């Protein structure tokens, strides 16, 4: 039995450059892209999502 937990949402916009640089997100040594969300999607489509 295989059950999908998560799959990427379809994107209307990509590479807009509006997100913060990875290096400025948390630590300035090993900040990782995959630990972030798309800030545009968060802002426009999921305003209730915690963004800290």
């Amino acid at each position, binding site marked *: *039995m*295989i*059950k*999908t*937990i*998560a*799959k*990427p*949402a379809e*994107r209307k916009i*990509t*590479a*807009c*450059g*509006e*997100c*913060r*640089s*990875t*290096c*400025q*997100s*948390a*630590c*300035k*040594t*090993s*900040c*990782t*892209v*995959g*630990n*972030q*969300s*798309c800030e545009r*999607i*968060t802002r426009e*489509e*999921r305003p209730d*999502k*915690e*963004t*800290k």
Partner: protein
Amino acid sequence: MVHIFNYKNNYYIYDVGSGSLHECDENTAKYLLAQQGEKVDISTITEEEIKEIEEGVAALKKEGLYEKEEISAYPMKSGDVKALCLHICHDCNLRCRYCFADEGAYHAQREFMSEQTAKRAIDFLIENSGNRKILEADFFGGEPLMCLKTIKNVVAYAREREKQTGKKFLFTTTTNALLLNDEAIEFFNAEMENVVLSLDGRKEVHDAIRKTVNGKGSFDLVINNVKKFVQSRGDKSYYVRGTFTSKNLDFSNDVIFLAENGFDSISMEPVVTPIEDLAIKEEHLSSICNEYENLCEKYLDKYKKGEGFNFFHFNIDLEGGPCLSKRVSACGAGNEYFSVTPNGDIYPCHQFAGEEKFLMGNVYEGKINADIRKQFATSCLFTRKKCDGCFAKFICSGGCSANNYHYTGDIETPYEITCEMMKKRAEIAMHILAEKKRIKK
């Protein structure tokens, strides 16, 4: 590529090409691993089960969620500058043993950035930002709060420039919190998009490394400042950011200590240092991976009790995560992101500051060394050949260029110890994502 893994008897399938995550039972995981050529005993799996597994896989393939072809090239990168790290001072009021910046001095004389140079850096960023609207500047040191007046004046200047240019600045400050008084708190809450506060966790852990100029531990001098700031922060972003070394491989206790002191946005990073008795080495990897598992259990316990917190490296957003452009190009150091030292010199990022080989120009000259920039602009996930077969490549983007360079001598070659920690955190982050969904149901 499909990564099948078992975490505490939970079986997961991560499809690298699509970025989708699935769960399955043990027999399905075994069968799929056998299909990948792994030596797994599948003699107990019945024909009926195999049929069901293959039907499930076929359905995922139809949706593009299994063995989806991975992108191996991407049109990039813009020549626009997006962010600057402003080394507002190369001096610090602490003397932390593990400091990569030579306890604030960056292997040179202790100095402060003039207001004029900082403003010139803001102009340099605007001039080189092309059509980008959102720009970022972070105040870094040394200890930026030793220069609060300069920071205030530079932010005011940038706000004026916003009105003239239509740009929007997002500011960040990284501080040790020693000088985080009411004036600084009020200013940060008004102007800083993000604030990173250095605190290593338990008092004895923090004090063993993060010492004042007089050699005394700084924990008691900063903890109340950090608490006061966080309590005043409201919904705005901050991170309480610790460092673990080989001396506190039980760092889950430090993360939980921070969470139990009221901090709900935490990161805890492996130290980057050549100092023999603090450095993370291969012999520590097993303990560190176990400790990430301990932290995962404690993290989920707190989540279940309604005391959840944000731990940066356990975040993974597989539904609305970063776009491919970002996953491939990572932080953009040396191309869209630079650091500027107190005299205006430009380097690919703060971790290259002071290394003559990577000096890229000066904000007063207004030009960036094209050769060095090309080296960084063309460096991306796809040029890091060691990453080709790694399941986590679209999560970590091939690692930090500075980390790669300092450990392997080449920005393109990832450091294997960092890779192993990264992969462990990625698997745990996926497990946490699945667990949270199960709990919510």
